[in-house]
């Protein structure tokens, strides 16, 4: 790591120096892509920093960042860092109540938020957060008559004045920064218990970022669409750390509901999306193709077939015979090229997905039409990644090889251990947690169970904590099974139980879009999710999915014992607002187990139906009760090793 | 002085014949809101068909009803093939369609019956009536008088048809408001069919008169163009308007030709009616009998 460029503010100034007139940030605003050069960004950051300083923001203080991906929110992070402060990005869609905890935990006194909506939430949580004194907002819409909140424009004006009054202040502050300083505090979504603040240093994130930049040869000409929550480590790595390390361009969409359009316009070369995004995209593609003319449908079916056969091989540079190459080339003109175009992925060089396991078919589909989609594995504590899939070495069921400067080790109990410069410095005010997650040798305990396959690639089975044993003593990895289930477009969420029990049973959430469409095409009328979920046809459909999974499991030795014996389709969608999922849509297993205890009992007591009433919160924030009689079905299972025959 | 009256009367008489053609327009416009530019073509078609049939040896007493039948069928066909598919389209579209129709009919007629000019003898001499000439010294063509008589008869007939008969009233209802008409159970399609049929009949009579007067030829279609200023004057929806408008146009264009023509080198019949109508419009945009429209918003 270049010693003079060991903090983000310094990286920014460097870019402003060497490529001052190149685009650093774009935002779709007022109908066009407003562009800021590196020089412009540097100037604004300077103003912001000086403004904050003038407002009394000091070294070591925390700056809350709340809102959609907006340029000036990113810049505020650099500004805070320039003053030796620590930005604390938070999930913008959380309700005020959830804010209060983090705001207090991080002793937030200064907050930069996007708009009226966020300001309102801040003001709402203020009574609970005595420390919160200064609130700055980016978008002044509707805020003219608010008391005690300041517009960023005003702040920056102040800053410029302050800068004129104290020339050199900014530069000396930046000069004070050290690589070991904490650069950011990211709160883990916390599948269990309260969220913890993960403190990362400049070094950690810069090293991590550089690793990825080398690994995928990212350059200043690349461009990225920044649309994922700023509080999420992935976004902080891709559209902040790597942005400042590689010096490429980040693009902020116009609004949440225009992301797909904006993606099409920008056509990024470097792209990240969680599996569910790719999944939704594919579902949409399939749904739209259903209405296409028969010729088009035929072309689509034919050429995607060809792609499935040779597409990924071509992408991996494996040998493919001339005829297939020609055939694929034709398909590229007829289908793949146009498809990439309508998806906005024509220019993608590198695309990553992570956060959850991705369906093999899904994964193969994107690769087969020529999109270099890869998987990575990591966590907030490791600056987003531990393993990356190298070009040409991509498998759907692994998460790739150890990233540069990462030491990987598998513990005796199968837990994945990591060591390297990208590890977290500490959990904020949680020495205990820090101690238990980093052992004496400096290895971080990821909490995931997995193994390294013969190709040297890591394969994650499940959360180590969740890996349990069936009554029979056979290993039981719920997430592993759930993911297999979720690979089916019809299955949105799945929760399986079996730890310490004699068999595995499952809750299923159907995908309303996909199953709904399926139902319509079969003329099955339904009034809504609950109604659709209860249809016998749907149970049959899901039953078939489970049967396939069982067949696979049967073929996977030890896991063969954990085939799903019985299942039910839940009467409501699992929802973060009901605390059943985390904000990153991971299932809160234990919580669900309590909430739906009756259903679990029913599953194991062999009942064929069970009545249940559940509290749920609606879109508009009101909450009410849903009641239903849930039917329970048995699934076909297979003798271990019988997989091939059955599947 | 007597010469003046002679011109005036001549003009008025031919004016009646304009009214006759104009009536065709009014009829269809009233009932279906279609500005039927093809009316002239229908006149031409009718005349050509009639003489065509005569040439093929039919006796006038057979040819007339035969032509009538053909015209009615034609009218119905037009309604069915051209206008029904275009129902609820903006008026302008329908207007364009009828222009297309004009071309089609002209082409069709001449392909079937040939394009050469024919005379048509209805057994009326286009000669002045002696007794009138003797008594007043004003020459009025017998033909003109009879023709005018027939036209007048037609006009009154239609007027009665519109105002007295059930169908006529239905037509008016339709003209005022299609939806309402439908609501009270008036069969639109059928009504329109009738209207086009009647329009065909009117075209036939006009065709015979004009054909007998100027000879049956392509030029007949221009008679329709003459009827347009009449419509502007009288308003598209008013039968009396068509009549009065016709008289005014007929008289004024003759007078203009005779008294203005010489100073500007003649041939002003072609445009004078238009300019007259235009000037008139500037004064009274809603026409002679059209009621004033207050545009509410």
């Amino acid at each position, binding site marked *: 790591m270049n010693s003079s460029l060991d903090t983000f503010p310094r990286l920014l100034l460097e870019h402003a120096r060497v490529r001052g007139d190149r685009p650093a940030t774009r935002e779709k605003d007022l109908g066009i892509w407003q562009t800021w050069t590196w020089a412009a960004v540097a100037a604004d950051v300077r103003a912001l920093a000086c403004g904050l300083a003038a407002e009394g923001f000091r070294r070591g203080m925390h700056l809350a960042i709340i809102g959609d991906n907006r340029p000036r929110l990113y810049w505020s992070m650099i500004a805070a860092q320039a003053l030796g402060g620590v930005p604390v990005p938070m999930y913008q869609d959380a309700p005020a109540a959830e804010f209060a905890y983090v705001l207090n935990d991080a002793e937030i006194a200064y907050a930069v938020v996007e708009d009226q909506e966020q300001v309102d939430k801040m003001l709402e949580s203020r009574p609970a957060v005595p420390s919160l004194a200064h609130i700055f907002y980016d978008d002044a*819409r509707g805020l003219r008559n608010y008391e005690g909140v300041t517009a960023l424009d005003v702040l920056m004006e102040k800053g410029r004045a302050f800068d004129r009054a104290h020339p050199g202040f900014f530069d000396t502050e930046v000069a004070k920064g050290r690589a070991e300083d904490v650069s950011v505090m990211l709160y883990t979504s916390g599948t269990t218990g309260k969220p913890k603040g993960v403190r990362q240093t400049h070094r950690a994130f810069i090293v991590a970022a550089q690793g990825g930049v080398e690994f995928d040869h990212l350059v200043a000409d690349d461009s990225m669409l920044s649309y994922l929550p700023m509080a999420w480590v992935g976004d902080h790595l891709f559209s902040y750390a790597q942005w400042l390390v590689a010096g490429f361009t980040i693009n902020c969409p116009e609004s949440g509901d225009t992301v797909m359009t904006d993606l099409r316009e920008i056509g990024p070369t470097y792209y990240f999306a969680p599996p569910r995004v790719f999944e939704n995209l594919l579902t949409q593609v399939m749904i739209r193709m259903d209405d296409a003319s028969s010729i088009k449908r035929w072309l689509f079916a034919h050429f995607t077939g060809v792609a499935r056969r040779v597409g990924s091989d071509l992408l991996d540079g494996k040998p493919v015979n001339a005829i297939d190459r020609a055939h694929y080339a034709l398909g590229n003109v007829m289908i793949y090229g146009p498809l990439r175009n309508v998806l906005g992925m024509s220019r993608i060089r590198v695309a990553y997905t992570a956060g959850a396991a991705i369906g093999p078919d899904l994964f193969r589909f994107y690769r087969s039409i020529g999109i270099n989609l890869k998987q990575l594995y990591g966590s907030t504590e490791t600056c987003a990644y531990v393993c990356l899939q190298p070009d040409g070495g991509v498998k759907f069921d692994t998460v790739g090889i150890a990233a540069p400067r990462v030491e990987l080790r598998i513990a005796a109990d199968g837990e994945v251990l990591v060591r390297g410069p990208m590890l977290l410095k500490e959990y904020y005010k949680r020495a205990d947690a820090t101690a238990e997650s980093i052992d004496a040798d400096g290895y971080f305990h990821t909490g995931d169970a997995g193994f390294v396959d013969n190709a040297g690639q890591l394969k994650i089975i499940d959360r180590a904590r969740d890996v349990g044993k069936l009554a029979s003593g056979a290993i039981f990895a719920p997430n592993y099974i759930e993911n297999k289930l979720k690979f089916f477009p019809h299955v949105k969420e799945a929760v399986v139980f079996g730890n310490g029990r004699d068999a595995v049973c499952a809750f299923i959430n159907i995908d309303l879009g996909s199953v709904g469409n399926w139902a319509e095409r079969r003329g099955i009328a339904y009034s809504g999710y609950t109604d659709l979920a209860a249809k016998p046809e749907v149970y049959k459909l899901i039953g078939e999915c489970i049967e396939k999974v069982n067949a696979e499991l049967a073929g996977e030795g030890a896991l063969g014992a954990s085939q799903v014996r019985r299942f039910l389709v839940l009467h409501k969608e699992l929802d973060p607002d009901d605390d059943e999922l985390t904000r990153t849509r991971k299932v809160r297993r234990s919580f669900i187990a309590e909430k739906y205890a009756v259903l679990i009992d029913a599953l194991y007591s062999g009942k064929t139906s069970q009545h249940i009433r559940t509290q749920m919160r609606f879109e508009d924030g009101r909450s009410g009760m849903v009641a239903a009689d849930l039917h329970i079905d048995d699934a076909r299972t297979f003798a271990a090793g019988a997989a091939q025959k059955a599947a | 002085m007597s010469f003046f009256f002679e011109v005036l009367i001549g003009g008025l008489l031919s004016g009646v014949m304009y009214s006759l053609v104009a009536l065709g327009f009014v009829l269809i416009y009233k009932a279906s809101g279609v500005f039927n530019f093809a009316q002239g073509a229908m006149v031409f078609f009718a005349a050509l068909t009639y003489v065509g049939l005569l040439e093929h040896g039919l006796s006038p007493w057979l040819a007339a009803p035969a032509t009538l039948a053909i015209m009615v069928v034609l009218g119905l066909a037009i309604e069915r093939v051209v206008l029904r598919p275009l129902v609820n389209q903006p008026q302008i579209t329908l207007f364009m369609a009828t222009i297309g129709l004009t071309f089609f009919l002209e082409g069709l007629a001449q392909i079937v019956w040939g394009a050469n000019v024919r005379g048509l003898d209805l057994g009326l001499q286009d000669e002045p009536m002696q007794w009138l000439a003797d008594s007043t010294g004003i020459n009025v063509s017998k033909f003109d008088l009879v023709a005018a008589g027939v036209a007048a008869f037609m006009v009154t007939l239609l007027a009665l048809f519109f105002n007295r008969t059930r169908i006529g009233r239905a037509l008016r209802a339709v003209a005022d408001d299609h939806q309402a008409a439908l609501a009270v159970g008036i069969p639109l399609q059928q009504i329109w069919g009738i209207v086009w049929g009647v329009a065909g009949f009117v075209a036939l009579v006009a065709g015979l008169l004009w054909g007998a007067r100027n000879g049956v030829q392509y030029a007949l279609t221009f008679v329709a163009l003459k009827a347009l200023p009449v419509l502007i004057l009288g308003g598209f929806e008013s039968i009396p308007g068509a009549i009065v408008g016709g008289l005014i146009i007929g008289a004024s264009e003759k007078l203009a030709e005779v008294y203005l023509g010489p100073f500007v080198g003649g041939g002003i019949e072609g445009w004078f009616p238009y300019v007259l109508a235009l000037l008139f419009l500037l004064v009274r945009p809603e026409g002679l009998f059209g009621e004033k429209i207050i545009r509410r*918003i």
Partner: protein
Amino acid sequence: MTAMSGGRSIGGAILALDNITLSFGGVKALTGISFDVREHEIRAIIGPNGAGKSSLLNVINGVYHPQQGTITFRGEARHGMNAHDVAAHGIARTFQNIALFKGMSVLDNIMTGRNLKMHASVIEQAIYLGRARREEMENRAMVEAVIDFLEIQHIRKTPVGRLPYGLQKRVELARALAAEPSLLLLDEPMAGMNVEEKQDMCRFVLDVNEQYGTTIVLIEHDMGVVMDISDRVVVLDYGKKIGDGTPDEIRGNQAVIDAYLGVAH
């Protein structure tokens, strides 16, 4: 949130109608109407159907010409002004039944609201260089601000014909706003809207009034809305003014209750 929330200070009369009488061929639509509108206020006109509310707006923005009475706008009395002159004086409006330009996109519709701000000659526009282009760009920027303000980015390039009713109403408001009027006339802006749309529209009306300090005269049937957002209310019945005052005063006004509230509720 009420219209009273600070920020804008209500000023003196910007528009005054004095003894306005309008009739269509003998039929009296308005008789001796007089009232004033103060700067920055939201002034509501209410009344049963056919009370002459729309006619009154049409008189104010010069579509109808009253037989009697004077209209004073910004201190100067108007005489037989045409609608476009009125527009040039900074009065814009929306219509009861949407009057958008069906053949054009949302963007173009709103751009037409800027026509008074564009001065390039036809020839300049034909060549599309220099002033013509510059004006086009500058005004587009302003229009985009309005689009942003009314949150209709996602339909920017859609032909207005394809939009649902509620959005069309919003686009029409946008077109009026694009003219940067000092007086905005809204003819039943919330007619035929569902609750959500009404809430949005209310918010927008208030925001406009607040953000740009635009004086607003609106006709509305929804009593709740009127009483909520307007500073003062005029009540018409059979073309005559039967009440004038703050919402509270109107609530208490016996004549109004008899003539209107009574029957309406």
